[in-house]
């Protein structure tokens, strides 16, 4: 055993990490969805995730977390909450401007839309669980649409 080659040792290292810190089961599927959606609309500009926090709301076992995305001068803050078999997104766009926000779910063909209020707020309710992304369309058509990366509810 003392003459284990470098390749044999590295194979052992690969093997133990694959067993003891395996790839999460959902990860490949989730990344395929992320990449495919990003590739399918290269004309839509992507927002960048800059912050993510998890808060553990104890009531009824529901979970909520917040996400913050930026694109240019636009800031998008989301509170994503699970409630039973459905979920909702409460959003805030800064600075506020007339926009339509659509939730595109991986599991349902129908999209859910909302228009941003004068104060920049919007809400999307009765969303399915699973992979989701938001597409934001300024009413000023001279501006391009933009979209968040995929996130999971």
């Amino acid at each position, binding site marked *: *055993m*003392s003459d*284990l080659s*470098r390749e044999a*040792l*590295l*194979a*052992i*290292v*690969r*093997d*133990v*990490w*694959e*067993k*003891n*810190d*395996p*790839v*999460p*089961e959902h*990860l*490949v*599927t*989730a*990344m*395929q969805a*992320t*990449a*495919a959606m*990003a*590739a*399918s609309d*290269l004309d839509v500009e*992507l927002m960048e*995730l800059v*912050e*993510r*926090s*998890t808060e*553990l709301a104890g009531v009824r076992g529901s*979970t909520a977390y917040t996400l913050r995305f930026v694109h240019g001068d636009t800031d998008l803050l989301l509170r994503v909450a699970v409630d039973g078999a459905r979920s909702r997104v409460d959003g805030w766009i800064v600075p506020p401007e007339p926009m339509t926000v659509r939730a595109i779910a991986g599991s349902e063909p129908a999209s859910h839309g909302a228009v941003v209020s004068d104060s920049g707020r919007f809400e999307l309710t009765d969303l399915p669980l699973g992979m989701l992304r938001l597409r934001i369309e300024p009413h000023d058509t001279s501006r391009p649409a933009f979209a968040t*990366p*995929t996130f999971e509810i």
Partner: protein
Amino acid sequence: MTRIGAGPPYDSARPGAVWSQATDGFNRWVAGDPAGLDDLVSVMTPVLWHVVRAYRLSEQAAEDVIQTTWLALVRRRAAIVDPVAVGGWLTTTARREAWRVSSAGSSRATPVDDEDLAPMLPRQRSAEESVLQEDEGNRIWAAVDGLPERCRRLLRIVAFENRPDYRELATELGMPVGSIGPTRGRCLAKLRVALMQAGGV
């Protein structure tokens, strides 16, 4: 044992196959076949997982880094002129992002401790599973897990990456560039001794 369900599993015996599969997927995607991108993601995501997790990121932070890496690939596809380089481009991009996130501290990426989240995780892994493994597997794992942190990280990255960039690795590990090769040799020697002492293999 939790195994990924989609795509070909990482082949420990023939790690070189991963890189040619990645190139093949990339080529088909560039040619207009969306399934090529699926295959590229399927074959490279497990490699990215192990490289990124070597930086002691939480599972969530590691997943965010990997997502950022795939988005970077889609947006900057034009930057990959040589399709053979796509695997290395992905691991390098992921390592840079993992290094950036781990250096920035846990405040941004993971405001909640893993400990607090652990009860919510749908799966039980690592320690619990290793208990169920056969004794030899435990002893080999203990030998790898018991290596000094620098060796653990370096060997995990070297084992899963094709040809890691020694210059960047040196910066991340706080070592002179020229000492990476000798350090890798010393880490492998430590592992060899630990395996002998464990009576494994």
